[in-house]
């Protein structure tokens, strides 16, 4: 029998991940934001900028209505032009640099800009990626197209601005911060000594019992007999019935493997918490809370 792969292939994911290896050689996994959420965030931001620009125009108009005098009116208009310009170019860079890589639009959509290394975005990088926004989003004749195409095609969803600045846009995952604090009750297994079967044998037995019902009866009997014969040298057989023997053996073995003597790693089915994992989490909870 082939030894099963240590790491079962994960189910194919639609989410795009970015693995960043820390100096401790542990990968931190970030989830990349896709075209959709980034476009939506850009839409929200653009609407905000647009609203402010329109507001500024009204302010300029109001200055004209109040007859503040031609000289002052000129200064107001000049201020409006400069502010509009600042808004247009500064809005994204300022928010991303000062608000942890999040413009209001990104905040609504739950995404943020980080450096490729996983660090918080630097002011320089925020400036560069938003200067290049000119190319990504305001390219003459083809506005928005370069940025959208780049995000769509690039492996890390980087537009030109992201490439120049070395940034990626990732999804903010809600994290249960209380996890580190609340201890959960883990049933205390009985002390039953070390397991008698090897990992491979136990897995074979486990799989056989799980599929016994679906097998051809003749085949099932033959396999049960064969397995029982294989184990009975080490573990005394108290019944004649091979099936009953195997079931008791399996239950006992499972109990033993829950005890603290079982240090070997079991590869659990994907998504299911294994006994080892439970014990591991229970033991470590306090340490993580401190961190």
């Amino acid at each position: 029998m082939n030894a099963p792969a240590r790491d079962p292939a994960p189910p194919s994911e639609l989410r795009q991940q970015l693995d960043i290896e820390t100096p401790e050689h542990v990968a931190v996994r970030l989830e990349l934001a896709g075209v959709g959420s980034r476009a939506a965030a850009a839409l929200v931001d653009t609407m905000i900028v647009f609203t402010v620009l329109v507001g500024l125009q009204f302010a300029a108009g109001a200055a004209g209505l109040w007859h503040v005098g031609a000289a002052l009116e000129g200064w107001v208009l000049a201020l409006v032009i400069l502010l509009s310009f600042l808004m247009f170019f500064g809005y994204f860079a300022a928010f991303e640099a000062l608000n942890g890589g999040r413009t209001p639009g990104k905040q609504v959509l739950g995404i943020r800009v980080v450096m490729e290394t996983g660090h918080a975005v630097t002011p320089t990088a925020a400036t560069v990626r938003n200067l290049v926004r000119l190319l990504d989003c305001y390219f003459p004749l083809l506005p928005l197209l370069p940025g959208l195409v780049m995000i769509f095609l690039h492996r890390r969803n980087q537009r030109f601005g992201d490439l120049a600045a070395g940034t990626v846009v990732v999804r903010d995952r809600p994290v249960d911060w209380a996890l580190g604090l609340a201890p959960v009750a883990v049933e205390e297994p009985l002390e039953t000594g070390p397991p008698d079967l090897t990992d491979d044998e136990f897995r074979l037995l486990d799989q056989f019992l799980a599929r016994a019902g679906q097998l051809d009866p003749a085949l099932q009997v033959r396999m049960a007999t064969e397995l029982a014969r294989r184990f009975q040298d080490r573990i005394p057989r108290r019944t004649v019935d091979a099936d009953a023997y195997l079931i008791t053996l399996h239950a006992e073995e499972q109990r033993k493997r829950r005890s603290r003597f079982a240090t070997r790693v079991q590869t659990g089915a994907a998504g299911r918490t294994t006994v080892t994992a439970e014990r591991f989490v229970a033991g470590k909870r306090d340490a993580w809370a401190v961190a």
Partner: protein
Amino acid sequence: MGGGVAPVEDVAQLREDLQAPIQFVVQVQIEERVAADLARARTYGVERQVIEYLERVVSAGHNALYRARGRRRASLARYLVQDFPAAVVQSWRHVLAAFLLFTVPAAVGYGLIRGRPELADDVLPPVMVSRAEQAAEHEARGIGYAQSPNEELPVIASAIISNNIGVAFWAFVGGMLAGTLTALVLVSNGVSLGMGFGLFVNYHAGAYLATFVAGHGVLELTAIFIAGGAGFRLAGALVAPGDLARRDALVLEGRIAARMIGAVVSLLALAGTIEGLLSASDAPAALKYAVSAATVALLALYLRSGWTYLTRIKPAPSRA
């Protein structure tokens, strides 16, 4: 070497600095432990929630410990007068390339219009031609080029600043297209400047235009060259990344280019102010030329400040 021991300005700060290494070691230990736990948790197939929680803890620690911490946060003023010009000096080759890509087409455009004046009607905007036609007449009456009533001056100034910054930004961003767009912006602006001058000289009004341009022109053109140079830095990273991977080279060059853009914006803001408030006003030509000379001196000081800063932080600055 510069450096040495900085004078102790703040005792509390010093104490904090001395405490920092101890805290740091503790943080590193915690970080290493939790990172190891994360790796183990993945192997054991712990629930997703727990892994995500650990990932958050590890990445937060990673952020805190390994972030770029080259130096203390400098004040904005220091960026303005040291970092920005230093980046410009450091990139003098790129800026020179941009300068040539602007001035050579400008000279060609000038020569073309001077040699064949009839070309002007086809290639130059009619507004400009009519302005040149009226120039001699205006000069006689003592009105300047683009001279405007005083109330409108601030508006003109801010509009011009915005426009120039737009041009400069495009020259920079064009670097992302391997510099093609940068070259295009530089050449087209150079040609139109050269042709414009040729046109006015044809109408015997060269000095007249020069008076208008003198006050702000030096700063404005320098800013455009620097922006072009910044664009060429990006382009250089893409076309000839050297020993680095293209993506890494781009990020490194982008950092320097961003500082150059800082210089561009500060120069253009100053140029636009002069342009709107002085160049378009009826101030005497002598004053305008004096301001022009002052901007040259200012520019020299600015770059010098960058040069000294550069030589202080890096003994061999020529290898940009």
